[in-house]
């Protein structure tokens, strides 16, 4: 129990990859390699933006998010780089 707790603490805040289907959250920050980070920001995944996880692809990846009035699909690996709050 305590071990998982500290692991979670190390992994810091929740990310888009941790959301459950149908849940909404607010983007807290974007991390990751410059190319990915820049692309995500340009697609409108900016701090403060509201995001909803709509569905998961049949094979378990990628994910389909709704934000700013459109659907954006990200792989789990990419979604992990977007920290969220207020799930």
């Amino acid at each position, binding site marked *: 129990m305590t071990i998982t707790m500290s692991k979670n603490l190390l992994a810091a805040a929740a990310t888009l990859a941790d959301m459950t289907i149908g849940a909404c959250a607010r983007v807290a920050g974007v991390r990751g390699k*410059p190319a*990915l980070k820049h692309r995500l920001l*340009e697609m*409108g995944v900016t701090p403060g933006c509201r995001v909803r996880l709509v569905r998961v692809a*049949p094979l378990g990846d*990628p994910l389909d998010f709704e934000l*700013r*009035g*459109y659907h954006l699909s990200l792989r789990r690996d*990419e979604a992990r780089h977007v920290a969220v709050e207020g799930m």
Partner: protein
Amino acid sequence: MAQTLATSAGPKSLRVAVAGNPNSGKTTIFNGLTGMRLKVGNYAGVTVERREGRLRSDPGGRTVLVDMPGTYSLAARSLDERIARDVLLGWQPGEPTPDAVIVVLDASNLERNLYLATQILDLNVPVVFLCNMMDIARQRGLTISINRLSRAFGVPVVPTIGNKGEGFDEIVPALKQALATPVSLRPNCPMPDVVEQHAAQLGRFLVKHNLADARTARGAALLLLLRPCEVEHDLDEPLPAEVDRAACEARAALAEAGYDDLSSFLVQRRYEWLDERLATVVRRAAVRRETVSDRIDRVLTHKVLGLATFAAIMFAMFAAIFWMAEPAMGLVEQAVVFLQGAVHSLLPAGALSDMLADGVVAGVGNVVVFLPQICLLFLFIAMLEDTGYMARAAFLMDRVMRRVGLHGKSFIPLLSCMACTVPGIMATRTIESRRDRLATIMVAPLISCSARLPVYFILIALIFPQEHTWTKAGLLGGIYLAGILLALLIAAVLKKTVLRGPTPMFVMELPPYRLPEPLPVIRVVWDRARAFLIRAGTFILAASIILWAMFYWPRPDVTVTAADGAVAQVAPAEAAPAGAEAAGGGFEPSPTAAPPLAGAAGDQIGSNARAVTEASPADQAAAARQMEYSIAGRLGKTIEPLLEPLGYDWRIGVGIIASFTAREIFVSTMGIVFSVGDADAEETALRRRMQTAMTAGGKPLFSRATCLSLLVFYTLAMQCVGTLAVAWRESGSWRWPLFLWAYMAVLAYGAAFATYRIAAAFGLAA
């Protein structure tokens, strides 16, 4: 009143660029504004499609619209973005700077669409916004104030519904208004002072290098600051090195001033500014409404139903291509035979009429025969794109493709290769990353196409003459599977070596579903077919004529008979009995025989084939002799030592050379080599002849080991001029098709050798 747009801008014609995000409905708008008469080509030096047409609703008709690549940004991180930026700034060679820009916005997600739009506004060109797909926005519960949107950004805004043509009449007046309004009155997204200072400095540097003027300097500088220096991008940047250096220096200075992640800062700043501006423009309904599109997606991306529908759609696509293309291809083949007959009857017999009929007409046939499959495949692809299903296909299949380092978007092009590699390679244009596109093109020919089937059929029949159909089907399935697995394996290898690069990002928009419209779909089919004919067709035609000549010359002396000359030395036992058997009524050449399936194809060495179908068995032997005597025949003998380890002799070598224009020609060539006449009409006769054929050493030529080895060879070897031509066109360099041919040759040779040796060890060579 009748003043045209062009005269209001000056005496010369007016150029208007049409920009917008992907899926904003930009293409529909462009088609609607220009009609069907377009100039379609590529931007100089790259394989990004460029379309240009005249604005229909402008009475003077001198306003030219240029369709820009659909992008989300002008940061120039991808080739499309780079072209879009360079067109707007006049940095693209041969492309004059546009006088005005129409920016198409998807009304449902204005923020993200305006991100690109405001980058364009920063360049201080006259701009008109089209707020498109207003109907869908309304369905989503959005209320957009067009007046407020216009005031917020200082540009004329026209609400449009692209597929219904609504709002199109207002575009010309709006353009006039934009051209008449000074751009200085527009608000700009202000940056902090220190950023503005460095941008201004970089802007002055651009002006000094003639890359910008006072108007565009700030916007251009901000675009250059947007892209981190350390990020590797696989684009050929046309900018002088000193500009890149100046941009990096500015970034370094700004990093010291506290903006260590300048790119992120610039993007976020712009979005913040946009969100502020839009606060009073867009009103959202309190309750989230589920759109029709969302409901469709619940089925089409469902765990079970989604995959089942996907499989059904893919199957329907293939069934249609396989079965619908065949009659059309048959027509092409009949037309070729008819024209060949016409040429021969109109012209006196001789080299000229032979060349026209068997070189040129058959060569054109070799090109045109691809069209049914290209048209059908692009009909499907255009519909899948337009409905929005293409993005879902990538969404469903990405998990599989990512395993080998590719993007979900590579799936459909590769799958298309099972019908025909040529349109499959042409379909790779939707893949954004150049490396992934190349990797997809490089493995595409490993997937067995339908042209290989005739070869597979005859070889499998030779391997399993008595076995049950299921055994044969099993072997056929195995070949297909081996091709697919190998394609994936090699893609993974290429992505780790020659085309090393990170697995592409997936970050992809899933656009709302839409009903496809007939005209744009037909437009895509037409453009693709035309592009193929012009770009690849000439190459295929030339190759066909050269190959014909190789089989035509030199001609043996007419007095040479089967009993003497070079022929007799090599295969005396072969030529004579073959003729004798046929003369003894072994088979009756049928004058009404259907043209070869391989067809157009087969007739490329048709001087012989025709002689055989129409003439006596003695002529058939003569045709075989001619083939042996020709350059190709000699070449076959020259490479015989190279082919021997695979279990082949020179006759198979000739078949391999002949089938370089198209694999299925192997069958008709064997027909000539073994004096059978129309190989397809007389398949059983050909098979019998091949079964009894002996090597010089007195062993059966088509032993199981040899056939297995040939099967492997044809699965893996790059035996298709069309594919090479298209790979050359789509990669923009002759190096890639050369590499393609070379690696596949090595692979095919190695694998065929191993197959022969292993099979021989199991006693299948006798």
